[in-house]
């Protein structure tokens, strides 16, 4: 085991003085040393469910939920201690050496990872409770919780990673559990295809992650983040030479997991999975892994001599994602897909925040978004549970039937669109304000691009949410089911999440509280960023009216009418067809890359293999066979002629003689005795 990072802590104190941000950190004591339990418990529980789940009284739900409750409580305790005194700890066990590199499993306990432990634990616990109601009677109830627990374990492996290898392991584990859960209803090939799409898109992006990790590890001579940073800051690495490429490659990996343009295509399809999956994985936690990666490597992306130049790309990609992918939510009829595109768009906000150097703001949005977006998904799940359809055209007027769902959904919507005083208001405002600050200090194209699209994005977010809420909850019910409020086991988690969605924003009110900033900036290496003294009032007065206008326009355009179809009839020519076809990006991947690869390219390779590469041996074999045949002909007709003639004579003689051979032993014996007698007689005579 590695000792705690005492030298690093001293060093950190020194550097943090420089950055002007005072943080004291201890090593967390036994609490941090035992934090590996957070990772191990869900993983062990996964195995337990696989082997004993079906026989256990709660069919695996109990074990899975216990695991999440454990993580939530442990995370909360860690968070509390972290706020009191700060925790910086890194533990590891060695699992092998390869050349000069030590491979390790380990666990990092610092502000960033504690925030993720807490988030995964709390949201996970609430979603698991909800899933008991939602998944009731499912064909693969136990299997579902096993995969879900595997996901939790993988996610915790990821966020606890002190090195790139473990990060990759966790990264792929959440990927495979995502695949399993998206394809949960695998009887239908559509769901399997959605799972494959998610896996493959991520796998493509993972090429970036692999290459980035390789470049980084080989340049710095270690997989450990702490060593990489240390060498980076002390200038003992060739990382500067490759910094841009390593940063870019790792960012490509992050783009895949966090569904950034142009790797966003998998996330909306991933909604084929059960709704709790969409809430926990595809909204709250798994998709934030990319943001987490950039945040974990923030010092690397921050320094101009390393990957500083990548920041502009991150900001631009984030801005494109947050604006243009938000647009796609406008035309979706499936309520989960509306929320999915909304998630993509919000992930764009977080990524863009990282790009403009707003570490805390990005993570703050990650934090609040986890609550309000999983709330919205679970609310949507509750609705779907009631009307047995994903489509908003089958909904309407549900406000009256499902009050608890409606009110919690409203809180979630308020948070998502950024209305005062809900959580999203604070976090989104912080991002835009940080972007504005960066743009005003260092007016680059990327920064301004990000600021303008962020403000535009706020409008779009409010607009599509107004449409979704209006079509779902207002007007008259038009479907054919009998909507009813969901059971307590589902509404209680909604209320829990709603509480967070409503109040989490107060953790970080600029100039008033800085709990969240103090929380996540407890890092072994200083996070240098700007923290505003107070709210940027001019921005608030620009953004909030924009949101209100968008909400009003949205509600008015999609106001209750005779039929749902009539309500949803609003379109903008040229643009809407473009949105409906998702900017033709999916089509391009399918027809431009996948089909040609699996079709002509693969078939062609196989044809070449069988007809050209294999032709040499086959032809050689063929030629050998022909030569052999020729030799054989000569042999048969010429050489063999002599022998054949001789043997024909022998054969004829034998044919005659064999008539004497009856197969009776005694006859043979008599004949041989006769022979002996004759020979004896001859001896006697002569």
């Amino acid at each position, binding site marked *: 085991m590695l000792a705690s990072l005492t030298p690093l802590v001293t060093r950190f104190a020194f550097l943090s003085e420089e950055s002007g941000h005072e943080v004291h950190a201890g090593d967390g004591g036994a609490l941090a040393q035992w934090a590996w339990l957070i990772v191990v418990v869900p993983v062990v529980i996964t195995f337990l469910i696989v082997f004993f789940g079906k026989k256990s009284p709660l069919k695996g739900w109990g074990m899975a939920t216990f695991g999440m409750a454990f993580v939530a409580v442990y995370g909360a305790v860690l968070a509390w201690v972290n706020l009191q005194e700060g925790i910086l700890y890194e533990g590891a066990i060695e699992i092998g050496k390869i050349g000069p590199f030590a491979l390790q499993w380990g666990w990092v306990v610092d502000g960033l990872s504690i925030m993720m432990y807490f988030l995964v634990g709390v949201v996970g616990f609430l979603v698991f409770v909800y899933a008991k109601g939602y998944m009731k009677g499912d064909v693969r109830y136990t299997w579902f919780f096993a995969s879900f627990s595997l996901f939790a374990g993988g996610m915790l492996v990821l966020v606890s990673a002190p090195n790139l290898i473990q990060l990759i392991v966790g990264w792929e584990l959440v990927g495979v559990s995502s695949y399993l859960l998206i394809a949960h209803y695998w009887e239908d090939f559509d769901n399997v295809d959605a799972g494959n799409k998610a896996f493959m898109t991520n796998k493509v992006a993972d090429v970036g992650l692999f290459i980035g990790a390789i470049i980084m590890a080989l340049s710095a001579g270690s997989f450990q983040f702490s060593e990489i940073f240390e060498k980076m800051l002390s200038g003992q690495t060739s990382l500067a030479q490759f910094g841009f490429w390593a940063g870019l490659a790792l960012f490509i990996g992050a783009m895949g997991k966090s569904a950034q343009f142009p790797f966003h295509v998998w996330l909306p399809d991933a909604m084929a999975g059960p709704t709790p999956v969409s809430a926990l994985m595809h909204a709250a936690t798994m998709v934030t892994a990319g943001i987490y990666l950039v945040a974990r490597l923030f010092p690397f992306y921050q320094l101009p001599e390393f990957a500083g130049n990548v920041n502009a790309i991150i900001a631009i990609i984030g801005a494109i994602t947050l604006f243009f992918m938000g647009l796609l939510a406008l035309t979706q009829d499936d309520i989960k897909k509306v929320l999915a595109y909304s998630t993509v768009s919000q992930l764009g906000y977080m990524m863009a925040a990282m790009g403009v150097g707003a570490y805390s703001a990005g993570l703050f949005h990650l934090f609040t978004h986890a609550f309000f977006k999983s709330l919205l998904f679970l609310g949507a799940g509750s609705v779907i549970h009631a009307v047995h359809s994903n489509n908003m055209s089958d909904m309407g007027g549900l406000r009256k039937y499902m009050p608890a769902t409606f009110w919690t959904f409203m809180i979630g919507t308020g948070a998502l669109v950024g209305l005062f005083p809900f959580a999203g208001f604070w976090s989104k405002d912080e991002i835009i304000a940080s972007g504005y600050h960066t743009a005003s200090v260092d007016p680059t194209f990327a920064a301004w691009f990000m600021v303008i699209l962020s403000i535009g994005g706020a409008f779009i977010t409010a607009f599509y949410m107004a449409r979704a809420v209006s079509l779902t909850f207002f007007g008259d019910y038009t479907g054919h089911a009998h909507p009813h409020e969901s059971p307590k086991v589902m509404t209680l988690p909604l209320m829990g999440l709603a509480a967070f969605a409503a109040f989490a924003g107060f953790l970080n009110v600029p100039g008033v509280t800085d709990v969240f900033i103090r929380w996540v900036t407890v890092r072994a290496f200083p996070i240098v960023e700007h923290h505003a003294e107070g709210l940027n009032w001019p921005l608030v007065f620009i953004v909030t009216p924009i949101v209100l206008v968008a909400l009003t326009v949205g509600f008015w355009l999609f106001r209750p009418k005779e039929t749902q179809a009539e309500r949803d009839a609003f379109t903008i020519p040229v643009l809407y067809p473009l949105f409906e076809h998702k900017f033709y990006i999916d089509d391009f991947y399918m027809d431009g890359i996948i089909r040609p690869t699996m079709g002509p390219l693969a078939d062609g390779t196989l044809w070449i293999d069988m007809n050209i590469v294999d032709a040499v041996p086959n032809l050689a074999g063929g030629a050998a066979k022909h030569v052999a045949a020729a030799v054989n002909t000569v042999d048969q007709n010429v050489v063999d002629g002599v022998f054949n003639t001789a043997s024909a004579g022998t054969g004829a003689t034998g044919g005659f003689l*064999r008539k004497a*051979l009856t*197969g*009776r*032993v*005694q006859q043979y*014996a008599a004949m041989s005795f006769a022979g002996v007698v004759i020979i004896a007689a001859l001896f006697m005579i002569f």
Partner: protein
Amino acid sequence: MTIIQFVLLGAALFSIGLYGVLTRKNAVLVLASVELMLAAVNVNLVAFDVYLGDASHAGQIMTLFLIALAAAEVGIGIAIVLLVFRNRRSANIDELDVMRY
């Protein structure tokens, strides 16, 4: 010492054995007859060894050798006959003509 009784005994044994080999249908009896023929040879060998007063007693040594050989031969023979019987439920040698042609 006369030799004639021993030669007659040998001739009689050999003839009986030869008769058995040529006429019996049961393979076991055929084998027994073969033994008789061998016994006849042994009698002759011992008798002539003593009669001729061979100093090296080659005849008696040859007899011992033949006894061992006969034992081995009858062992293999019986084994074959038993296997044949097991396979064909019969030890009748008239039916054993698979080696014809």
